[in-house]
């Protein structure tokens, strides 16, 4: 089968273009999709406070729901594109494994349906329902959002941990038999990956929304409603951060056990050996990590809770089965570093709150809170780079390479540039529209105050 596919394989340039197009569309969608999970929680929290008499909170919920309507729309359409692209760019994978791993998407469709339906009723029902009933109508939105995140991640987890068919027969003959779609969906990598993703969504959503208010704070917008907006979003992100660090550790240990080459790549372990140090910082150069702080036995301990344990190195597989280690390691370092920085911001906030019942006064805190939004997005992208680039050259770990799955159609590079141009415009337009929305709501405030 491999031979047949290589006979009319795509050029290396087309393969790269296909991977870049997928990375771009997924990387774009994942940011917006995070808001689909996190934003409804903020809105409902604000609305819930509003039903208890807090008028600022009630107004905040209404305004946030407008911004969310925009984000949800671009999230819905950018997600649809991915299902087109899976077939257009990776027909080899869809043809061989579509009936193994596709079920998750069918079920995700149900969850997304519920989210879209209730969002339609919620957004257009502010005047139709009494306040408490309206809150109730909104409740399914975050639940369906989290459910669809969970289910869709099962599909990615399957690519890391393919189950639900006879892998030995596939390796030998290229035929997929004994398909069990439920086993594929409930593959062992799902719980850790999906939890990691949902927490990441809460962090990205929370830190980005809080970042907007931190920016406003730095520019003197410090009304009660602004503070409330910051606090709700920041607290949710804050609560997710320590949990994320624990789950991240779980994810790394899971990779160490089930995808040792990915683990070796993200820590740049070139040679299989015992008592491997944990190297923090620095960079990879010529199969060595330079300028890193090394903690003896640290990596062995983190991976197995035994400082003398043996860690499988990249030398255990042929060179063409190793991921590009410099990229994977730096992405991993960025993700972990940002995670701890965000934790630090949260601790700062909590200390101030514990001492004075108010957010920190230091301008440096607000600068950090402002930076936290973009940083959380970078950490999210870095995390996806770790799991996706770290799996290379496989699209289905250990079984199918990306060059076996990619389309043989010509002109993929052209498509990549077209898609890039559209996403660039879309990014600018989304930012422009959201900031314009904020501006016009603020000017409505001024109008109300004057008149």
């Amino acid at each position, binding site marked *: 089968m491999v031979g047949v596919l290589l006979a009319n394989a795509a050029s290396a340039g087309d393969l790269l273009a296909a991977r870049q197009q997928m990375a771009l569309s997924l990387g774009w969608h994942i940011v917006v999709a995070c808001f689909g999970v996190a934003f409804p929680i903020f809105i409902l929290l604000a609305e819930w406070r509003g039903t208890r008499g807090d008028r600022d909170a009630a107004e905040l919920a*209404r305004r946030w729901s*407008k911004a969310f*309507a*925009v984000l*949800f*729309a671009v999230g*819905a*359409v*950018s997600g*649809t*594109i991915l*299902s*087109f*692209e*899976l*077939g*257009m760019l990776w*027909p*080899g994978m*869809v*043809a*061989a*494994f*579509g*009936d193994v791993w*596709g*079920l998750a*998407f*069918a079920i*995700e*469709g*149900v969850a*997304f*349906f*519920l989210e*879209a*339906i209730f969002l*339609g*009723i919620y957004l*257009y*029902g502010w*005047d*139709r329902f009494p306040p408490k009933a309206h809150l109730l109508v909104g409740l*399914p939105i975050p639940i369906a959002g989290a459910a669809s995140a969970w289910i869709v991640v099962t599909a990615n987890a399957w690519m890391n941990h393919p189950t639900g068919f006879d892998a030995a027969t596939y390796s030998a003959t290229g035929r997929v038999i004994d*398909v069990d*779609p439920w086993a594929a969906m409930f593959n062992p990598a799902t719980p850790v990956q999906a939890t990691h993703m949902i927490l990441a969504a809460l962090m990205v959503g929370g830190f980005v929304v809080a970042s907007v208010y931190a920016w406003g704070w730095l520019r003197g917008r410090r009304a009660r409603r602004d503070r409330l907006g910051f606090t709700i979003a920041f607290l949710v992100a804050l609560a997710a951060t320590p949990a994320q660090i624990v789950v991240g550790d779980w994810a790394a240990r899971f990779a160490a056990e089930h995808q040792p080459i990915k683990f070796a790549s993200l820590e740049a372990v070139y040679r299989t050996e015992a008592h491997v140090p944990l190297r923090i910082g620095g960079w990879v150069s010529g199969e060595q990590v330079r300028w890193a702080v090394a903690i003896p036995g640290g990596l062995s301990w983190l991976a197995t809770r035994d400082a003398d344990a043996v860690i499988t190195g990249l030398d255990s597989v042929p060179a063409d089965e190793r991921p590009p280690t410099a990229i994977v390691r730096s992405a991993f370092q960025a993700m972990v570093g940002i995670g701890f920085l965000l934790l630090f911001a949260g601790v700062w906030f909590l200390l101030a709150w514990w001492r004075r019942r108010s957010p920190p006064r230091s301008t440096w805190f607000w600068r950090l809170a402002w930076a936290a939004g973009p940083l959380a997005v970078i950490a999210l992208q870095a995390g996806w780079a770790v799991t996706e680039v770290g799996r290379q050259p496989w699209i289905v770990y250990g079984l199918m390479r990306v060059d076996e799955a990619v*389309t*043989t*159609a010509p002109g993929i590079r052209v498509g990549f540039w*077209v*898609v890039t141009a*559209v996403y660039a415009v*879309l990014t600018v*337009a989304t930012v422009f*529209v959201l900031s*314009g929305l904020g501006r*016009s*709501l603020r000017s*409505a405030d001024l*109008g109300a105050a004057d008149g």
Partner: protein
Amino acid sequence: MAEAVLGAMWLGVTLYAVFGGADFGAGVWDLLSGRAAAGAPRRALIEDSIGPVWEANHVWLIFVLVFLWTGFPRAFAPLASTMLIPLTAAALGIILRGSGFAFRKTMTTVPLRRLFGATFAASSLLTPFFLGAIAGGVASGRIPAEGAGNLVAAWWNPTSLLGGTLAVLTCSYLAASFLAADAARSGMEREADWFRSRAIVVGILTGAVAISGIAVLRSDARVLFDGLTGRALPLVALSAAAGTASLGLLWSRRYRLARTAAVLAVVAVVWGWAAAQYPWLLVNALEIADGSGSAATLRAMLISLGVGAVLFVPPLLYLMVLAQRGELAADSAAKPEGGSR
């Protein structure tokens, strides 16, 4: 089993053609609504009638795609590979349509509303064209069983052009009859008349194109032609009758009935296509039995759909009922355009 899954998927195609189609058609009418001032009430009507529902209607497309690649992976792979260009175009159209629509709502100045509105409207025209062209390529047997067919000829051919044109016309017709009914319900008599007269014109045009299309299919898509004039003939006749009836009902201003008849005409033609093409998944290349996934997966899909339907059908119907009664409206209390209009 494969037939049951295919039937479920085709139900999704039907619902997307009717509801998604009407949303696309509304975008076409937005494009043709005239200058900013004169077209404002029509555009407001369009915005109100598709605003609450378009995202839910859009899910039917996702449903169809997912069912296709999970249930019939060996058909989806060559289809998506061959239709690279129109699928990319439709995908971009879907992005621009959705975001243009959502963006326009938040805009307060005329030039910006015009920019995003034009994006929304133009992509509403292009997307159904490309989707119809893809359907034409499948129905005329231009997709191979494996690999990729001709990347251009597969969708730039007589049947595809017919499919694309009919898709645009049908969407516009559905939308005009839906919007006429919505306008009449809201007491907007002038708008109802505006959509009514256009619905009648487009309806006649659609019928004319469909009839002349018979000749195209005869020479370019023989399998489909034989099916439509053979096994699927009752459905074709039903579609023609319902379409004609809807024109008459529009003429006599019985909008609700006209809308039902228009929907029936579309449903009949969608199922007529399926019946004509049966048992080919990809005409002259792949039959259902050869293209379907494993039995375990097909069973799992039906179970998931059954359970899922219990969850999503009641709220979906509720949303539709609320929208139909005109009880859903954009948030009035904190309108961003407050005061500036």
